[in-house]
Structures are given as C-alpha cells and as structure tokens.
C-alpha cells in the first residue's frame, strides 16, 4: 500500500476533509458519541501497547508455572495479568528456542494481538512484509538486521482467522537473577512478532 501521508502543508488534504466531514455527519446524526471516540483513541494511543506483552514475556522467563500455562492456554494465562480485550480474544503463545524461531504475519490484512502489543506498526501492514514473510522469512529478518543460524527452523504463522499470536523470545544470556521489571525492558515489540530478538543487557544499559 502507499506510503505517502497527508499531514504536511497547511491546507486540508482531501482525506482530512473527508474524515472531518464523516465525523461531523456521524455525530450530528447521533450515530457516534464523541466521548466514545475519545475513549478509543486514548486507549490505543496511550494505554495499550507492547509494554503489556513485555510483562507477559518477562513473567514467562522467570516463572516456570506461568510459562507452562502460557503455552498450554495462552488466552487464560494472559487474561490473568489483565491484558484482555478486542483483537486478543484468542491468543496463542509461541515459544522461541535456540532451535526454533517463530514469526507472525497477516498476509490478508493486519491481524495483530492488540491487548498485548497495541496497534500494529506500518511495516506490519505493508505489502513488503505481507508478501515476503511467508515466502522469504530469512530475507525479511535480514531487513530487520537479524541473521539466524542457517539450521534454525523458522515457523511462520499467518493469522488468517481470529486467533492472535504472541511470540515469546529467547531470554538473553547474562540476565540470571534479573527482576521481572528489568527483564521486561529487554522485550522489544519486534521480538514478540518474531522479526527481532530480545535486547541484550548491554543494549539497554543506561
């Protein structure tokens, strides 16, 4: 899809004008309550995001019981931490290991686990990712600067229904004894999609 945006310049673009027109019409006709729009925008812009998923992963790294539950029934385990809701009704957690690397895509659109990762980034919804993730996942990983050993098994998950996938990356070496809070800071969004790895301790050192 196109990459151009329309927020430059002072004149209203055709797109801006149409959105404004729709909001006016929908509000005046009583179809939309402006207070509801505020709730929706505030939720997805400020409250829900990959910091939620990072808590899930960090807990899975330190708590073997939670980890087992997460891979047996991802939805229930994640709900227990309060990360529940729209576009996350059925979450399957995928375990990355030194031998197996999981990567998630939605070739048809943009399906993404909102309660744990927030709204998807532009690249996830873009034609380059959607076209190549299933046919050339190693090439896509290289676009992200990630080079896996050539014998690592790569499992790509195309989320074509209402299941949502959360990748649990490998816990970085050198983090023995770390707290959940400190570990969560290593869990990047991309590592939970499978286009990245968790950050190493030296990458987040202040």
């Amino acid at each position, binding site marked *: 899809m196109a990459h151009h945006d329309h927020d430059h310049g002072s004149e209203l673009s055709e797109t801006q004008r149409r*959105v404004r027109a729709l909001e006016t019409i929908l509000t005046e006709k009583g179809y939309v309550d402006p207070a509801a729009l505020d709730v929706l925008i505030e939720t997805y812009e400020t409250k829900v995001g990959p910091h939620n998923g990072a808590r899930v992963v960090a807990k899975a790294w330190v708590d073997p019981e939670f980890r087992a539950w997460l891979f047996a029934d991802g939805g229930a385990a994640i709900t227990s931490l309060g990360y529940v809701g729209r576009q996350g009704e059925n979450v399957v957690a995928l375990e990355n290991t030194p031998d197996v690397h999981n990567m998630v895509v939605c070739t048809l659109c943009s399906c993404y686990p909102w309660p744990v990762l927030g709204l998807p980034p532009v690249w996830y919804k873009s034609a380059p990712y959607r076209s190549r993730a299933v046919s050339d996942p190693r090439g896509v990983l290289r676009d992200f600067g990630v080079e896996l050993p050539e014998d690592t098994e790569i499992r*790509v*998950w195309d989320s074509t229904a209402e299941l949502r996938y959360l990748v649990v990356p490998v816990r970085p070496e050198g983090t023995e004894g770390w707290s959940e809070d400190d570990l969560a800071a290593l869990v990047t969004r991309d590592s939970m999609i499978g286009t990245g790895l968790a950050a190493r301790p030296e990458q987040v050192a202040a």
Partner: protein
Amino acid sequence: MNGVHDMGGMHGFGPVEPEPDEPVFHADWERRAFALTLAMGGTGQWTIDASRFAREDWAPPEYLGRTYYEMWLAGLERLLAERGLVSGDEVEAGRPLHPARPLDRVVDAPAAMRMVRSGGPSNREAPRPAAFATGDRVRTRNLNPPTHTRLPRYVRGKVGTVVLVHGAHVFPDVNAHGGGEDPQWLYTVRFAGRDLWGPDSDPTVSVSFDAFEPYLEAA
C-alpha cells in the same frame, strides 16, 4: 476474492522498512478514522467480516494507492453508504443532508470501554464433531470465491498437517455477506515451505495458516 490484498508470496514490493520510534498514528485524521470505524462497528450495523470485505474489495490500483487508514476510511464510507446511513452527497457537502435513521445501538463512553475490554469473541458452540484432529494430513481445497474468504491463494491445493484445533468459530466467508455466523471448526494447518514454494526454497521454513473446516479435505 482474489484481490491484491491477498499478498502472500508476491514479488516486487521491495524490502521491509521499519520506522524507528514509530508513533501509533501519523496524523490526526488517522486517529479520527480509526475511532470512527470502531465506534460505528459497535453499532452492529455490520460485522467485522463485512468491514474486512469492504476494505479489500477494490481494484488493485485503488487498494495499492491508499495508505492503511485511507483504506479504513474508504471501507467505512462504503459501509455507511450501502446501509443508507451516510450518502456520498453528504460527505461531499460535509454535513447531513438527509434524515438520520434511528440505530438500535450507539456506542457511548462506557460501551467503548466494554468494547475495548471484552472485544467480540468469535468462538461458538460446535454444530458437529470436528472432522480432523491434530496430526492429520489435510489438503486445502482449490476455492476461488469472488466473495470474502480467509483462504489465501498461496495455500490452495496444498497438503499440510493439522497442528492445532481451536473449536468452532464464526465463518467469515458466510458472515461477511449477511449469511449468518455459520460456525465452523477452526484449525491451524502447517505446510513445509518447500510444498508451498518449491524445491529451491529454504528447507528450514514452515508456514501455517488458520483454516476453517470448509477449506479442507482429508489428504
């Protein structure tokens, strides 16, 4: 439909370009288009499957020429027009020109909060026993409906293995077009990459998709 939205395996789109420190929205109109789409979806005037079809049912140049939220906007305008809620002349005028049709439901702030928190699970009671079990070999049917489907082209007519069984879910192919929920068993089916992409492709790769039972037959 065999639209350009069904992108798996296509060539020529170039490299993936991640944006460092990407904001959630890139312009204020994206925020508004996003929220308007969710709020109108909550009125129950259409299903999530119908809204997906409204976004994908475009000629390739139109689809590819729009950014993601421009596509959402186009889909919303189409759904509103199809249901007689907002017509094209109103969007052009920028104000209502025709009387409102009363809706059964309008999303207020508490309802928006409920939408966010509970979502809209697609799980349904199974109408019949599952035809397949984990470990079964299955072949995807060669189906090419001009209507909504979640069976991508690149997996059609391929043999794979059932790796997960998820119970019954609303069947988008029927639900998108007003045919009701028609719950169907849902499976995750995994294919060897070479069975999809040929002998020259990476032998370490496998690809799975989430398959409704009508997409599958025993292999």
